[in-house]
C-alpha cells in the first residue's frame, strides 16, 4: 500500500510529508526531488522507480503530489487517490497552490490522517469529511466535543455507511435541481476532410437541493432502453423514438448510482449527494454532429514564405448560435511576420505561442467564414522540418453534439411531503470542443 505521501513546490521544497509505512525513510523525499523534480527534463513516466522504491506523481499547476511505496500496490488506485486528494483539497480551500497548502497544512495533515490509514484509502467523500473535519476560520471552531452523542454516531455511520455521500435531515424550502449535460466533442480530421477519429465524452452534472433522502431515477434517450420499450409500442412510435435515440458506447457513474440495477435493467437510480456532483460520464462515437468543419490550405512559397487559408463552416440549425469560437493556426518557429485578413471576428499573430489566433464571438448555424494569412519566414539552416501541428479549434454550442436528450428525472421521497411535481427542475445542454483538430 501507499507508504508515504509528499507534496512539493516547484523548487522541490517539501510542503507536506506524511509517512505511513516503516519501509519509507526520510531519504525517499530527497530521492524524488533529485531524480524527478530536479531532473530538468520532460517527465517520461508518471511512475518512477528509484532504488526499489516506486514514486507516483501528479502535478497541479506547479505543485507536485507524490505517493511512495515499496510494494506492489494497485497503481490505478494510487493515481485515483491522488486525484481524489486534489479534489478534497480544492473543496476545502480552493486552488492548489503553494500558498494555500502552507496556509492549510494542519488541515491537510488532518485530512491525510483520515483518508489514508496505513496507506489504505478510506472514505474520501468531501460531503462526509466536512461533517467532522472542518476548516477553522471559515466554519468556526466546531469541535466534535461539542457534538451530542446522536450527532457523533450520525457522523460515524455516514462515514462508514452505505450512503456515505449524503447526510440525513437535509431540508430545503424549495426543492430544486439543475441538470447540466456537458459534452466535449473531439475530432481528428485529415487535411482532406476525412474523419480520422471522433468521439463525444459527456458528463451529466447535477446540482440537487432536495430535502430528506430522495430516491431519484434518471432517464435519457439511450438506444438500448428505447429499443426495449419500442418493442411494446406501435411501429410508428418505435420509428420516431428510434431516430432520436443514441448509442452509448460506455458510461460510468458516481458511486451513488446502483450499478447492479443498471447492469440488469439499465435504469439509473440513486440517492443523490447534496449540492453539485457528477452523476455520470459517457462516451459516444456514432452519429456525432460535428458543429464545425475546418478546411485548411497551406502553401509553401519558396523557403521564406507560407500562405495559409482556413475556412470554417458551421454545421447546425441556423437558429442556434455558437459562442467563444477560437481557431488556432500554428506557425513555424522561424516566423518573422504575419499578415492576416479575416472576414469575421479578430485574428492576431501571437509570437509567444507560435500561432495565429482567430476569435469570433458568435456564429449562427450553416454559415461559413474564412481567414487568410501570409507568413514570412526567416531563412534557417535548421534541417529539422517544421512538424506542422494540427489546426485546433475551440467553441461552445447550445446543444449536445452526441444527440443525448434527458427524458426525465423523477424524484421520490416517501417520508417527506413533497412529490415529483413539486420539484423545480432545470436542464441545460452545452457542447464544447474537446480536442478538435484538423491536420494541415
Amino acid at each position, binding site marked *: *500500500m501507499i507508504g508515504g505521501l509528499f507534496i512539493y513546490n516547484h523548487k522541490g521544497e*517539501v510542503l*507536506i*510529508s506524511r509517512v505511513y509505512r516503516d519501509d519509507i525513510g*526520510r531519504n525517499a523525499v530527497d530521492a524524488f526531488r533529485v531524480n524527478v523534480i530536479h531532473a530538468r527534463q520532460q*517527465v*517520461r*513516466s*508518471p*511512475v518512477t*522507480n528509484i532504488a526499489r522504491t516506486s514514486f507516483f506523481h*501528479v502535478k497541479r499547476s506547479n505543485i507536485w503530489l507524490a505517493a511512495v511505496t*515499496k*510494494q*506492489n*500496490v*494497485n*497503481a*490505478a*488506485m494510487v*493515481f*485515483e487517490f*491522488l*486525484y481524489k486528494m486534489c479534489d478534497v483539497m480544492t473543496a476545502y480551500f480552493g486552488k492548489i497552490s503553494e500558498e494555500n497548502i502552507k496556509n492549510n*497544512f494542519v488541515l491537510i*495533515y*488532518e485530512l491525510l490522517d483520515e483518508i489514508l490509514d*496505513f496507506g*489504505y*484509502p*478510506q472514505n474520501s*467523500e468531501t460531503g462526509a469529511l466536512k461533517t467532522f473535519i472542518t476548516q*477553522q476560520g471559515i466554519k468556526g471552531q466546531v*469541535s*466534535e*466535543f461539542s*457534538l451530542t452523542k446522536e450527532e*457523533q*454516531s450520525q457522523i*460515524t*455511520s455516514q462515514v*462508514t455507511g*452505505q450512503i456515505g455521500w449524503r447526510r440525513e435531515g437535509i431540508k430545503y424550502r424549495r426543492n430544486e435541481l439543475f441538470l447540466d449535460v456537458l459534452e466535449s466533442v473531439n475530432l*481528428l480530421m485529415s487535411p482532406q476532410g476525412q474523419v*480520422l*477519429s471522433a468521439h463525444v465524452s459527456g458528463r451529466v452534472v447535477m446540482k440537487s437541493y432536495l430535502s430528506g433522502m430522495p430516491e431519484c431515477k434518471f432517464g435519457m434517450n439511450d438506444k438500448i432502453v428505447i429499443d426495449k420499450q419500442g418493442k411494446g409500442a406501435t411501429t410508428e412510435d418505435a420509428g420516431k423514438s428510434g431516430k432520436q435515440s443514441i448509442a452509448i*458506447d*460506455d*458510461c*460510468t457513474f*458516481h*458511486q451513488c448510482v446502483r*450499478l*447492479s440495477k443498471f*447492469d440488469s435493467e439499465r435504469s439509473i437510480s440513486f440517492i443523490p449527494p447534496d449540492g453539485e456532483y457528477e452523476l*455520470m*460520464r459517457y462516451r459516444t462515437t456514432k452519429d456525432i454532429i460535428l458543429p464545425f468543419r475546418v478546411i485548411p490550405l497551406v502553401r509553401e512559397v519558396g523557403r521564406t514564405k507560407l500562405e495559409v487559408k482556413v475556412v470554417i463552416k458551421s454545421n447546425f440549425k441556423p437558429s442556434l448560435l455558437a459562442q467563444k469560437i477560437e481557431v488556432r493556426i500554428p506557425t513555424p518557429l522561424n516566423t518573422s511576420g504575419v499578415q492576416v485578413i479575416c472576414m469575421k471576428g479578430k485574428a492576431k499573430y501571437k509570437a509567444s505561442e507560435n500561432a495565429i489566433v482567430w476569435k469570433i464571438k458568435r456564429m449562427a448555424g450553416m454559415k461559413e467564414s474564412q481567414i487568410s494569412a501570409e507568413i514570412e519566414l526567416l531563412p534557417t539552416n535548421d*534541417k529539422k*522540418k517544421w512538424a506542422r501541428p494540427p489546426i*485546433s479549434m475551440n467553441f461552445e454550442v447550445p446543444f449536445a453534439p452526441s444527440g443525448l436528450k434527458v427524458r426525465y428525472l423523477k424524484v421520490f421521497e416517501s417520508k417527506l411531503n413533497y412529490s415529483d411535481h413539486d420539484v423545480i427542475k432545470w436542464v441545460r445542454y452545452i457542447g464544447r470542443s474537446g480536442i478538435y483538430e484538423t491536420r494541415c
Partner: protein
Amino acid sequence: MTDSKYFTTTKKGEIFELKAELNSDKKEKKKEAVKKVIASMTVGKDVSALFPDVVNCMQTDNLELKKLVYLYLMNYAKSQPDMAIMAVNTFVKDCEDPNPLIRALAVRTMGCIRVDKITEYLCEPLRKCLKDEDPYVRKTAAVCVAKLHDINAQLVEDQGFLDTLKDLISDSNPMVVANAVAALSEIAESHPNSNLLDLNPQTINKLLTALNECTEWGQIFILDCLANYTPRDDRESQSICERVTPRLSHANSAVVLSAVKVLMKFMEMLPKDLDYYGTLLKKLAPPLVTLLSAEPELQYVALRNINLIVQRRPEILKHEMKVFFVKYNDPIYVKLEKLDIMIRLASQANIAQVLAELKEYATEVDVDFVRKAVRAIGRCAIKVEQSAERCVSTLLDLIQTKVNYVVQEAIVVIKDIFRKYPNKYESVIATLCENLDSLDEPEARAAMIWIVGEYAERIDNADELLESFLEGFHDESTQVQLQLLTAIVKLFLKKPTETQELVQQVLSLATQDSDNPDLRDRGYIYWRLLSTDPVAAKEVVLAEKPLISEETDLIEPTLLEELICHIGTLASVYHKPPSAFVEGSRGVQHKRLTGNAGSGESVESPDTGSAAGATEAPPAVIPSQGDLLGDLLNLDLTPPTTTGPPPPISSGMQMGAMDLLGGGLDSLPPIPLRTDTPQSPQLPHQSPSPPDYSPTEVGPGDHAGPVKLGGDLGGNPAMGTGFGGAPAVMPASFSAPVSGGLDDLFDLGGGVGLPMGAYNPPKTVWLPAMKAKGLEITGVFVRRAGVIQMEMTLNNKAMSVMTDFAIQFNRNSFGLAPAGPLQILTPLGPNQSIEAALPLSTVGPVMKMEPLNNLQVAVKNNIDVFYFSCQYPISMLFVEDGKMERQVFLATWKDIPNDNEAQFQIKDCHLNSDAASNKLQSSNIFTIAKRKVEGQDMLYQSMKLTNGIWVLAELRVQTGNPNYTISLKCRAPEVSQCVFQNYEAVLKN
C-alpha cells in the same frame, strides 16, 4: 488566518523559544507552538529535542491539538522510545472515550507507534475496538491489526487477532468488511502458505454483497482479494463474473481495472462455447476504451495494462484501433504506449489507417517517439505481409527526409524486412547506400553492414563500402565490429578473387589486434573454417536464416499469465513480476492463471498460439535450424547428403577459395587440397577402363571375328578434345572471374574426359506462362559427369517479383528426386529470367508411370504452386559403367527370352557405324563389339540403367541405306520403347 508563517521561522534559538511556548499556560499559544513544530518537522528539521514538551500537550480536549501531537508522536516515538511510554496512558484512556472518533483516533495512532512497550499496551484496547459497537472504530481497528502485524507478527497470532479479523469479514458494515479484507490480504501475503484468507463460496458471497455497498476504495480491496480466489467450477466462475461486471461502469478507474482483472482471470475457467463467454468478451472492450479518457497518469496505467490484455486476448480490442491514435497533446509516455498497442492491433483490415498515422507521427518532434514510429512501420511490414510494400516505400520516403535519426532507425528496420522477405526489396539497397555516411549509431551501422554483406553479390562496390568501415575498425562498437567481420567473410565467399586482401585484413584485425574475446573467437572460427573446408564455410556462413517472427517484444507467456493476475498493480505497469522490484518476502508468490482443462483453452489462447507460431517449422523448402545444427554437430564437413551435391559452380569457386587461403595465410598450417569434392564419387565411373578390351579377344561363336575395340576408344575424337573443350560445356552461368580458381577442377575433370558432343536436346517449354501466373519454365535434362541435372530457365512474365522458389517431384518410374533445394537465391523481377540447374538423385520413391519416362513436377513460388509433367530422355539414366563384358553380353543375350526382343527401324540416318557408335557412347551406350556381315555393320551395344537394368542392343547399319534396324533385348521389355526413342533422338541429332 494563515499558517504559512510557521514555515518561515529560521531563527537560531528557535528550539529554545518553542520549548517555552509549548509549556505556556495559554491554549492558543500551545497550539501555535505545536504547529510550528510540525512545520519544522515537515521541512526536515530535527525537532525531536522537544519530545517531552510536545507529549505534555497531549492531555487536551482540543481535538485539533491532539491530532497534531499524535502526528508528532508517530514521527519521533521511535527515536525516543523511553519517553514515548509517557503517552501510553493517554492512548489507553482515549480508547475508552465515549466519542467513537476519539476511540478510533487513539487506536489508529497507537498502531503507528513502533515502540515495543506501546505495542504491548495496544493489545487490550485493540481487542475491545475490534468488537466496538461503532463501525467507524471497527474499521479502524481492522487496519490496526495489519499495522501491529507489521511490527510484531508473532504477537498478533498469539493474541488471536487474526481470528477476530476473519470474523469481521461477516460484519454488517461494508466498510469494516473491506478494511478487514485489505488487512487480511496483506497479512496473508507474508504468510504464503497459511490458510489465512480462507476463501470459500460463503465468504465469497459475503464479499460480493459488500462489494455493492462499500466505498470505491473498499470495492478495490474486495476485487483485488477476489482475484486470488480460484472458483471450483465454471458455473461458480460465471456467477462471480456476473456479479462483478456491473463494476465496469464505476467512475473510479481503479475499480474498473480491478474488475477487469477478476474477469480476465475467471474467464479462463469458462468454456469457450458458452454464450456468456462471448458476452463477457464484448463487455470488456467499452470500459477499457473509457479508461483512455481519464487523466494522463491513469491513461498510462491503463495503456500498460491494455498492452497485456491485448497480448492475452487480442479479440477484445481488435476493432478499437482508432482510440489508440495519438493525440498531439498527449504526454510522451502516453504516446509511446499507444504506439505499442497500435502495432499489436495492426492487421490487414486496418493497416492502411495505421500506416497513415505512423507516417504522421514520424514527422513529430520528440526523438524517441519518432524513432518508435519508424520502427513501428517496419514492424507492420513484418506483421502484415500485404502491407510490406507500402511500408517499405513509406520508409524510403522517410529516408529521403535525411533527418539523421529517422534514417538510422529506418535502416535498422529495413534489415528486418529483408530478413522476413528475402530477395524481395533489394532494389532499395542503392538508396540505403547513399546514406552510409550519416550513420553514427552502432545499431544502424551494424544493420547497414549486415545488408551489404548479405547482398554483396548485388552491390557492385560492396568491397569498397566495407573497406571504408574497416578503416576505423577499432573505434567501432563491438556490435559493429562483429557484423563487419561477418559481412566481409560473406563477401569473400561470394567474390573470392577480389576480396582476399580485405578478408585477411579483417581476420587479422579481429584476431590479432583486438582484446575482445568474442570478436577474436569469431575471427578464429571463420579463419579455420575458411582454411579447413571452404565448402563447410559456405554452408555455415551463407546458410539460410530462419524466418524472423512476426511479433516482436512479446512478453513471455508464463510472465504474461502472472502479470494478468496483477492487472492494475505496479507489476503490470513495469511489466515485471513483483519479485523484481519488491524487497523481502512480500509479493514473491507467483500467481498463475488457472485454465479450464477440458475447454481446450490452451489451443485457442493467443499466447500459446504465438508460441506455436514461433516454434513452428518454417516452410519445408528451407532446411530447418535443427537440420543444420545436426549437420554441424556431426562434424561431417562434406556437404550433407540431404542437400546433395551443389551445382558445379559452387564447388569450383570453393576450390579457388581454398587455393587463395592456402597460399595467403601463412600463420595457419596449409591444409592439403581435398579431392573428395561432391563430384568425386562419380569420377571413377566416368573413366573408361581400357585394359578390359584387348584387341586380340575373340568374340563368341555367332559373332566370330576379331573386334578392335581399343582403336575405337583411342581414336574417339570426342575424347581427344575433351580436355581443351571442357569449359565450353560448363553452364553459361559460370562467371568469368571465378575461372582462374577453377583449374583444379578441370584438372580432375579433364583426367576422365568430359564427353564432347553429347546429345543435348534443346530446352522445351515445360510450364507455359499462361498456366502458371506468369512463370514460364523451359528446361532440359542432361547428364554431366555422372550427375543428372535438370537445367531450367525460369522466366518471369508477370508484373510482380517472384521469390521463394521450391520444387518437388511426384513418384516416378526410376525414383528421380531433387538432390537438393532449388538454388534460386535472388528474386526474379518482372521480365527477368534465371538459369537454374537442379541436380537429381535416383533414390526417390518409385512408381511406374505411363509413359515410363514421364515426370510430374510441382514448382512453388511466392505466388502459388504449379504442376507440370515432362518426359526425360531415358539416356539420363544410362550409367557410365554400362559396358558389359563380351562374354557376359553373349550369355545375357542368349539368356533373355526371345519374347523380350523388340525390333525397330530408325529411318533416314546417314551416319556410318563408327560415327553412330561415338555418338551413342556419349550417351553412355557402349559398343562392345562390331562385325561386318554381308556388307552391313553389326554393332553390339549395352547400357545400364540407374536401377541396374541392363539393355542389350544389336544395331544393323547398312552402308548406303539410311534405315537402321535395331533389336533390343532386356529383362524389362517395357523400357525398350523408350530406349528406341532415345536411339532415334541421339542418332538423328
